[in-house]
């Protein structure tokens, strides 16, 4: 994870049918932890949502062969069940629960040491890539994290 660059996913572990599993290590050091919180550094819940959203985004791009870019549409039922501290290894799982026309819905969860620490239903609007640079950057990131089909 590189929190300051919103780079939340380190590596794809598996991609099967409608489900992706990725891993991410929370950095030991980050300016984020200086403010959140002094003396009690924990990963902000909003960044856990972003981590689940990016995981779902990679899933959807893998499923549609990079035909469309997923943009965050809605976050429902987000729950944060435990503190996530610097250095924690996270496993993030996202499953496409609904394949709509121009949108998709995912069920996502984050686990640490086999225990669920966050989950949410996250919906995406699917649109053509608005810029060639963005598509190129996303394809580059897909290679970086080892997204099957884009390694």
């Amino acid at each position, binding site marked *: 994870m590189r929190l300051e660059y919103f780079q939340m996913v380190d590596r794809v572990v598996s991609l099967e049918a409608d489900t992706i599993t990725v891993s991410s290590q929370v950095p030991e050091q980050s300016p984020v932890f200086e403010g959140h919180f002094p003396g009690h550094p924990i990963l902000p819940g909003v960044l856990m949502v972003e981590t689940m959203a990016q995981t779902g985004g990679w899933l959807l791009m893998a499923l549609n062969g990079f035909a469309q870019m997923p943009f965050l*549409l*809605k976050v429902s039922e987000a729950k944060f069940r435990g503190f996530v501290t610097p250095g924690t290894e996270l496993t993030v799982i996202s499953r496409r629960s*609904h*394949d*709509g*026309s*121009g*949108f998709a*819905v995912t069920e996502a969860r984050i686990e640490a040491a086999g225990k669920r620490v966050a989950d949410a239903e996250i*919906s995406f*609007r699917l649109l053509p890539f608005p810029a060639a640079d963005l598509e190129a950057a996303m394809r580059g990131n897909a290679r970086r994290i080892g997204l099957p089909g884009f390694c």
Partner: protein
Amino acid sequence: MTSPVFDRIADIIAENSEVPREKITPEAHVINDLGIDSLDFLDIVFAIDKAFGIKVPVEAWTQEVNAGKAPAEQYFVMGNLAQRIEELVAAKGTA
């Protein structure tokens, strides 16, 4: 007299937006008259997909309208929308 499909769709719209149920008539345009925004509309489509076990082809409809191949009313006036949904449900049954 409205159809059961119309009534179900109208209920879904009322549940997923701030539009009062009584305003949702067969003549109402989903966007122009009811003021449904794009987020609420996709929520409504999601609920319709689930309720009827179909995939409402919003992208194809929008492309037809934007290309001038179909009037927006054909898909986005409530009575016509209900009819399109009934056709999709019927097509699913024969597929």
